[in-house]
């Protein structure tokens, strides 16, 4: 497990690049985000400064991977399986776009609880996706 990666603007390098670190966590099955040391804001997508307070004291944290559907839309391309694109509010306080699968084919609804899984993406880092969490 990579740990305690700290990003500030002076230490920015190929190894500490925010997107790279995110992918390294993802390769280990961890959904990571940054926590601002200044104002405690949860930062996603990864970057080099806090979009809330502006300071560059950002520390990587693993998310527990549990969240709630903020909104969702179903896209049904001609001749292909419909899929759901959703905005997920993670319990740690950040939001991301992802896809949600219900397993039994039922619709995903706003306020549904979901948890992260990682989908292999070939040469790219595994992609965080979500599944419905029934009992919570």
């Amino acid at each position, binding site marked *: 497990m990579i740990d305690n990666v700290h990003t500030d603007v002076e230490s920015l390098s190929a190894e500490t690049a925010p997107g790279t670190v995110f992918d390294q966590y993802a390769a280990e099955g961890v959904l990571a985000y940054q926590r601002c040391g200044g104002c405690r804001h949860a930062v996603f997508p990864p970057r080099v400064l806090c979009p809330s307070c502006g300071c560059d004291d950002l520390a990587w944290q693993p998310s527990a991977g549990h969240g709630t559907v903020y909104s969702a*839309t179903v*896209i049904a391309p001609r001749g292909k399986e419909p899929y759901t694109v959703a*905005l997920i509010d993670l319990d740690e306080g950040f939001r991301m776009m992802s896809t949600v699968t219900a397993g039994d084919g039922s619709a995903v609804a706003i306020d549904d609880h979901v948890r992260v899984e990682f989908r292999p993406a070939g040469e790219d880092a595994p992609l965080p996706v979500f599944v419905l969490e029934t009992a919570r």
Partner: protein
Amino acid sequence: MSTSERALRGRAAIVGVAESSLGEVGPGISSLDLIGQATVRALADAGLSKHDIDGLFTHSAFFSQPVLTTAEYLGIRPRFADGTATGGSSFVGHLWHAAAAIEAGLCEVALIAYGSTQRSNGGGLVASGAALTRSWETPYGPRMPASAYALAAARHMHEFGTTREQLAEVAVAARQWAKLNPQAFVQDDLTVDDVLSSRMVSSPLTVRDCCLVTDGGGAVIVTSAERARDLPKPPAYILGAGEATWHMNISQMPDLTTTAAQDSGRRAFDIAGVGPQDIDLVELYDAFTINPILFLEDLGFCAKGEGGAFVSDGAIAPGGSLPVNTNGGGLSYCHPGMYGILLVIEAVRQLRGEAGARQVDRHSLALAHGNGGTLSSQVTAILGDESTL
């Protein structure tokens, strides 16, 4: 609000407007040809010549340096140029930037221009350049821009009980206005049931909740209020405007039911010294049916959450309580990738009383509201005739 920004009220005016050919112009005609065509027409409308233009304001998804490409094609050498690129709202922003530049003496006659052949070029919405910056949304397959607006619509329905029928009312009202506009791309009958039963693009939005994909363009000429009074057409004075930019990606929009139009509208009304109750007609960027609902709320025409009820029962259709999108809008008249310039043109025609069968009775004060990105950039402009100065 700075004193100097308020001082821009009524200092510049729109003196010439024109559309290019609209709809489907066919192969061989370029986006630049449409810009040229609209510019020639707008200059004629203004009683000015190409040599008067010393300020150029434009944006395009067809070329990476739109100001340079457009200036070369038109054969102009502007001393002031502005390529502000906030998506479809850009051209409403250009209006305010032109007013400021003219007041500052940076230019005297500003051309705002746009042209697009996206329909003839094969349909899909043209994105602005190749993305070398990683997207945190694209891997999940959202059908942009529709899915972003679908997410906002779904959330609005969840929070406020807004219905698909109410979304459809926006499309139906737009179609009724389009039937009064010979330039409108679609003129067929459209009912709420037609909208609901159309092909679903990204739930809850069907293809009839989405704007057209057309060719088209336009040009707008702006100059000082002093010079405007010597020109042939009644000036449409720029009474105030406001810009607001909150995010780019829909996943970074804090509250999908509240747009930056709250800020842009407040700024514009403050400078113009008027309120929503004073406005005679409204041109809103209706890329999707949820847009007018959100913007009517955020601009203060109704309370947050009541937009669905507000647009129902023909209230924004011809003969309704508030004329909205009197040309038929992006939903039924024309949506050439970016629509912002066309809503300014329609507002000016209404203020002048030149709108023919769709002319509204009271037409002294108009609001034109541009949207760009995925509910990202919001720009509001308030225009008035001589009586509003």
